[in-house]
């Protein structure tokens, strides 16, 4: 059976401000989708709504995973169901080592029925797997002993998100600007790593402003978000066009969505 993540007519508000206004998107396992769009168009909101951020209220529509109602699940239940997001700005958890964090996370995701307090996956087994994955991603094993995202550089945070993706092996992953804030070498490394771990092995929704990531992970579908809606969907060539020429054509073609995007940006500036 092919897993399907299906988003239908999704409306999401933050506070009483509508951000997403009817998003439709179906991702099959193994597909790579690029999600592009100017700043403030609602791309990260879609990711956070998929994960169930308590500050993002779904006011209409549905999200289902293989037919199961995702909106009915707590964020940790979504993770255990196989949905993952690599955060644009991951949170630091001081005092908690990456290895301990990942061991607990990996156990919970692999054993969705695990109750609080039950055994974690054996230390030896976990350490070996973590070490292998880190070597594969060309990461220093010392990294596992550091506190989660605490004092990490921008690049280290993104690498840590990719490591989590590799360990948790979700069915679907939203990668929210996993290539931003990195130098050219780091972007290439991140792109290769993601291609290696995720391309064709998961359903990927890649939010990006750069072309490198998509070069290594060529999308079957490119979606353009503007003013909280997906205004256009194309193939790989649409992503290439937007990289080359920017969003002028899109803004002109969808004046209503563009006006809403400007409104949302202005409100964001006030906040």
């Amino acid at each position: 059976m092919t897993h399907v993540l299906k988003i239908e007519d999704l409306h999401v508000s933050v506070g009483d401000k509508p951000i997403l206004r009817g998003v439709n998107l179906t991702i099959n396992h193994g597909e790579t989708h690029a999600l592009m769009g100017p700043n403030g168009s609602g791309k990260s909101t879609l990711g956070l709504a998929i994960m169930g951020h308590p500050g993002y209220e779904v006011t209409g529509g549905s999200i289902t995973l293989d037919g199961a109602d995702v909106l009915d699940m707590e964020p940790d239940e979504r993770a255990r169901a196989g949905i993952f997001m690599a955060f644009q700005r991951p949170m630091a958890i001081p005092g908690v080592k990456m290895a301990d964090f990942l061991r607990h996370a990996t156990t919970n995701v692999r054993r969705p029925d695990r109750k609080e307090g039950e055994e974690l996956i054996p230390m030896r087994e976990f350490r070996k797997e973590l070490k292998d994955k880190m070597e594969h991603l060309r990461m220093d094993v010392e990294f596992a002993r550091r506190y989660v995202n605490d004092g990490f550089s921008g690049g280290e945070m993104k690498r840590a998100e990719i490591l989590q993706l590799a360990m948790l092996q979700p069915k679907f992953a939203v990668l929210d600007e996993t290539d931003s804030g990195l130098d050219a070498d780091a972007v290439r490394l991140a792109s290769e790593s993601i291609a290696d771990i995720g391309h064709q092995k998961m359903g990927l929704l890649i939010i990006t402003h750069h072309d490198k990531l998509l070069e290594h992970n060529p999308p079957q579908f490119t979606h353009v978000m503007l003013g909280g809606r997906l205004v256009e969907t194309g193939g790989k060539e649409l992503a290439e066009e937007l990289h080359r020429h920017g969003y002028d054509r899109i803004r002109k073609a969808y004046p209503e969505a563009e006006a809403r995007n400007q409104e949302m940006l202005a409100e964001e500036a006030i906040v």
Partner: protein
Amino acid sequence: MSSSTVHAFDEAGFEALLDHVAEPDWLVALRREAFEHASKMDWPHRRHEEWIRTDIRTFQLNKYGLPNFAGAEALPNSPHQLVEGVELGGRIETVDSGVVTHSLSQELADKGVVFGPLSEIANSHPDLVRPHLFTAFDPDHDKFAALHAAFMSGGQFLYVPRGVTITQPLHIGSIMTDGGTDTTHTLVVVEEGAEATVLHESNSLDPNAGGLHLGSIELIQKPGSHLRFVSLQEWGHKAYHFAQQKAVIDRDCTLQWTIAAMGSMLSKVNQTVDLVGPGADSQVNGVMFTEGRQHLAYHTQQHHRAPSCHSDFLYKSAQQDKSRTVWRGMIKVDPIAQKTDGYQRNDNLVLSPAARADSIPGLEIEADDVRCTHGSTTSKVDEEQIFYARCRGFTQKEATRMIVTGFFQQIFDRITIESVREALGAAIARQVREYE
């Protein structure tokens, strides 16, 4: 209490205690002076800076009897945790300030180490006790201190001779029964170049037990000596805990003093390190974790009385329910104490809207060539941290527990004794619950 006569904190009780302990004249004289002072002293005034945040109007001394100086019986199950898996060099256990057991390994006794009940050793080794007793502790500090000095019982004394290194920790355990009284006085003297580790813990048998602790710890370090002192306070949550705890450390000494304050209904503790010889180096680590309506007030001081000393201080406190902690810290640098390097920091994690953390750092610097820094932070558990962890499969409760444990990790990283790390971790884990 099980004894037939319950003595009160009055003259008759005082005389009965003196009769029983049979201490040398010089010590009796110290007690008499303290008793006289205590009788004349008022309870601390609410407007006194040290008491302005700590309300003791509901405290009534006459609700408590004197400690069990006539002798107590050992309890079948010791609640102590720091000893788990540790090979000890010796131990003393008291119940309501009555010594129930004490021991010291032959090897340490042969090296001249003295460890046992304070009253006994004051008789057998007055030359070791008399020059040090009450040199760090000030019986005139307030009425609680004076009462402690007059009525102390079941005290413990450790003497580590010159150049002797004790690798096996010594354990001092005080247990208080529900409604009981503990007035133990801990005196540790570490001679030149000597080295020791002491694990000190205070427990009630029941986490909801009441009682009264009027206590003191004195740590005296001679030049070039090294001491690790761990103090875990887990009195019952209806108990009062009044204590003065002070170390005086001389030239080129190192002191690592770790405090965990989890218990009591109300604590008012003064913890001081005096650095009196050049090159002395102290590290103070503190963990406070409160719940219910607990009120824990710690007034700390790093007093630089000699040049070129280093003092490092870190307290981490988390508060839940309607509990409150007070930390008031001071780095005091005397005019002579040039080249002082002093650091103090208190971090707070407030876990519920009705909990409160008062954090008041202070510097009093009279030398001009010093480096002193201080900091204080107060934060809540960040909802974004919780969400992030939940996106990785952690439940709300698991995420909170992890974040709170992580908050204290910085202290754990500084503790080199595994049993202490484990006991602290367990104590914290017992107290963490779900927050909404």
